[in-house]
């Protein structure tokens, strides 16, 4: 791939064009329910286990950091509150994003890329079937759904992990930990996290599909496409995360 300023612009342009196509195509009937269910199941099956395994140590690290921080500040009674807040607001959407992009997005990109270089996509277009409608929309929706569900899983596992580390390993008081649960966090934090997960799922699905459908140059091209799709998705996700967090703080009044 040659690096040129216009090339980068062109790629961003066609990525957004495809995102618009996807949005425009979502309402078109018939909805590909079968493909959607298959893809949702597939993305879930490749992400659930790694997500659970990643979120336990992630919850633990947050618990460790907050445990020592609150001790230093003399605010042990707030360790539960802080830990829930951190897991719910930041950790779980980010972990979800990493896994949806890393496990789900790569699989989608490799699958579509392999079909592209075998001319399957061209064949589909010639048979009068729009690959955006038939393949991309179900995949994007599936990765959005799974991201939302995974976000719930990460929150639960992360909070439980935090509780375990704080109470069992750092000798925190279970009562204080639980009692402070809702002093800082509120329900809108959970909704915000779910919305973030939804957007992250959409971004990773669209980028993976875009890179897969534009793969060229044989098997090596598919490898490159997968690589680029992960890198681009991560960059977009972290920027989006920042923007959404900033907006959230402006829009939703905070406690305390």
């Amino acid at each position, binding site marked *: 791939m040659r690096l040129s300023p216009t090339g980068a612009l062109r790629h961003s342009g066609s990525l957004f064009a495809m995102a618009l196509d996807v949005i425009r195509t979502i309402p078109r009937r018939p909805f590909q329910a079968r493909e959607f269910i298959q893809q949702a199941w597939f993305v879930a099956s490749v992400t659930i286990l790694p997500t659970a395994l990643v979120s336990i140590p992630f919850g633990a690290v947050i618990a460790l950091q907050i445990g020592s921080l609150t001790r230093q500040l003399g605010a042990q009674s707030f360790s539960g509150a802080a830990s829930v807040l951190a897991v719910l607001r930041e950790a779980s959407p980010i972990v979800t994003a990493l896994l949806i992009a890393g496990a789900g997005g790569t699989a989608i990109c490799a699958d579509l890329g392999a*079909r592209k270089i*075998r001319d399957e996509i061209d*064949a589909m*277009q010639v*048979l*009068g079937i729009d690959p955006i409608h*038939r393949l991309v929309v179900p995949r994007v929706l599936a990765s959005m759904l799974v991201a939302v569900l995974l976000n719930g899983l990460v929150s639960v596992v992360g909070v439980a992990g935090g509780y375990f580390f704080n109470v069992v390993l750092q000798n925190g008081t279970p009562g204080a930990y639980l009692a402070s649960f809702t002093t800082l966090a509120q329900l809108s934090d959970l909704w915000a996290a779910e919305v973030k997960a939804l957007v992250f799922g959409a971004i990773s699905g669209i980028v993976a599909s875009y890179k897969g459908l534009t793969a060229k140059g044989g098997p090596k091209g598919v490898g490159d496409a997968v690589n680029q799709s992960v890198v681009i998705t991560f960059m977009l996700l972290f920027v989006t995360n920042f923007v959404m967090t900033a907006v959230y703080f402006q829009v939703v009044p905070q406690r305390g």
Partner: protein
Amino acid sequence: MGVEICVEGLTKSFGHQVIWQDVSLTLPAGEVSVMLGPSGTGKSVFLKTLVGLLKPERGSITIQGRDITRLREHDLYEVRKLFGVLFQDGALFGSMNLYDNIAFPLREHTRKSESEIRRIVLEKMDMVGLIGAEGKLPGEISGGMRKRAGLARALVLDPEIILFDEPDSGLDPVRVAYLNQLIVDLNAQIDATFLIVTHDIASARQVPDNIGLLFRRELVMFGPREELLTSDEPVVRQFLNGRMQGPIGMAEEKDAAQVEQELAALGDGDRTQSPGSQAMTPRLLPGPGIPRPPRWEAIARREAELRHRKVVADA
């Protein structure tokens, strides 16, 4: 009933590299045409442009009064239903077995019942000789079978135009002969417009009504089979005879002086040979069991006459 394709002034380039320019030709309705050309002259690109997968820089492609280079994506999908395309490796969907692959267009585009779909699919599979392989996955079968399955899939929607991208590449000579016979039989049966992109000279001599030759970024010639086979144009002669002497070189093209020298060295032997005697390979006719439409009746009569004249001349 077959549809005419009218191509005018078509030019395609990738970046600064011109693939071919100013290609104008008409594929007559219901006839078989072959597009020849050395490797890498953009034959496959031409085919993909015809179905609107690639957008040309200039020119028009008119099918049923519509210019497909200017159609919106949505209308393009409608026009594409006229086409059946056989891709180089069959381009079957790897995750489906052969039956589902061939049934796919029917399930997507028609409201036919499963039993009706089954009847059509089995009929087309029988046509290409794949009965018994319905449950196989594309990865489990040979290249020849994949091609035939791709052809069956291209046929299920009863297309008006069928495009073949190198149907003979990677096949042994016997299978190529069978495939050529299949193409001719199909043309007699379904009457669609055929375009075959290939560099197999033997097929090009036997099968088509018309031949075109792409070389040096342009269409060197396009016309009836007899005209091309008896042509004195150096590029056409070199390609159809598959020899080294002539304008086509290993890498690209040769310089004029060298070509001149080579053709001279080839001597008068080549030129004095009357073009008709060696160049006119008998044309492949539909098999015995196939009912021939009037067009093929006429062709068969002409072929018989030619053969008769040859026998008389030889005697």
